[in-house]
């Protein structure tokens, strides 16, 4: 299967390990991620005012790129890109008068006609590849590994945009099981990590991340998985600050779900120390899930 792929800016820079592992893991399942040409930043956070069409230009322009390529579907790995692109796609479908204005402004582009469906990799795994096929591809079952799925906000909310039950999601748990590991449930798995406050209010984010990580660890999690470069940055890199606030805090590795897949698929090269503050490799070596 070939599918149009929108990587997003962070996956081209500090979160290149997310992009690399996504391509490797999906490739192992026979899914080729074909990067969209001339894509632009999605705008990250979706703008929430009624009159903010200027801020819908960025996501709609990407939908036009998909349309130009003859694609009806666009898949993302980043939860934030997914949320913003999908919200924009749904918004212009529901409001043709807004789309008409956007098209009129984008006079250098062909009109967006609607109909591009925005998907997240997890949906593709669940609905098309199937977790059974994922399980079959596993060459190194992650037996006994206790992994806490972390959804954050943008895979789940708001309703209609999220890809699972906003209050009780299970898609990441299913993936973890398919890989042979044991999912660790936490009541904070869908709670906000602090998001962009990491720019100017690090300590707020550190307190959020501290709670989320400690809760998962207290339930026996040895690692946490995420699908968002911002969540991962906040939960992983902010552990430095958490240690300053709480000397007894024990580091917890944070991986992208695609890195966990790559590991179980035996694609070790896709798991690098780059992109991680807490290097996950020593602990995985100790558990004999990664060759030294």
């Amino acid at each position: 299967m070939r599918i149009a792929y929108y990587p997003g800016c962070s996956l081209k820079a500090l979160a290149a390990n997310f992009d690399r592992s996504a391509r490797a893991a999906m490739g192992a399942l026979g899914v080729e991620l074909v990067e969209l040409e001339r894509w632009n930043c999605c705008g990250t956070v979706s703008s929430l005012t009624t009159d903010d069409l200027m801020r819908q230009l960025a996501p709609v322009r990407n939908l036009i790129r998909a349309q130009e390529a003859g694609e009806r579907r666009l898949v993302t790995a980043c939860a934030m890109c997914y949320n913003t692109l999908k919200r924009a796609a749904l918004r212009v479908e529901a409001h043709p008068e807004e789309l008409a204005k956007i098209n009129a402004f984008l006079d250098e582009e062909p009109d967006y006609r609607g109909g591009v469906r925005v998907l997240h990799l997890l949906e593709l795994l669940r609905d098309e590849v199937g977790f059974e096929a994922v399980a079959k591809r596993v060459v190194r079952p992650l037996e006994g590994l206790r992994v806490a799925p972390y959804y954050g906000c943008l895979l789940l909310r708001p309703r209609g945009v999220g890809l699972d039950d906003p209050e009780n999601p299970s898609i990441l748990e299913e993936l973890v099981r398919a890989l042979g590991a044991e999912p660790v449930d936490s009541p904070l798995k869908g709670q906000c990590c602090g998001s962009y406050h990491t720019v100017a209010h690090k300590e707020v984010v550190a307190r959020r991340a501290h709670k989320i990580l400690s809760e998962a660890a207290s339930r026996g999690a040895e690692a946490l998985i995420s699908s968002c470069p911002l969540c991962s940055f906040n939960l992983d890199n902010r552990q430095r600050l958490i240690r300053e606030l709480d000397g007894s805090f024990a580091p917890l590795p944070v991986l992208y779900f695609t890195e966990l897949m790559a590991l179980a698929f035996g694609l070790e090269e896709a798991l690098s120390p780059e992109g991680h503050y807490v290097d996950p490799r020593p602990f995985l070596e100790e558990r004999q899930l990664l060759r030294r």
Partner: protein
Amino acid sequence: MDKMGKIDLSAKELQEEVEALSGQRVFACYHCGKCTAGCPFASEMDLTPRQVLEYIMEGRVEVLNSRTIWLCAACFTCTVRCPNGIDIARVMEALRQILLRRGEDSLDLASLGEEELPQIALVAGARKLIG
């Protein structure tokens, strides 16, 4: 931080502008407090999310001075839980926009530290905190 000094807005203008920008009917709130109960930032806030709605309903423009509207990161927990279907994240955005559109930025890009931040953080911060 007093941002109100420069902003001349009557109670009614505040209510109208919030409803116009958010597209939400603030007066549908019956103060059950579910928004506050689920808000991950509530402990850091000066006004709880429910109080923000109360302030708007009472036309108390000092709500624009609240730290709460900037702490809200639009996680949509309140939005999915409100029994009256009020998208409270949009109400918070409307309050931020009232200030941002009058030139009251909440982030100064020139004063960022040396830390390497991912693009996603900077773009999101710039969109939410700069007018």
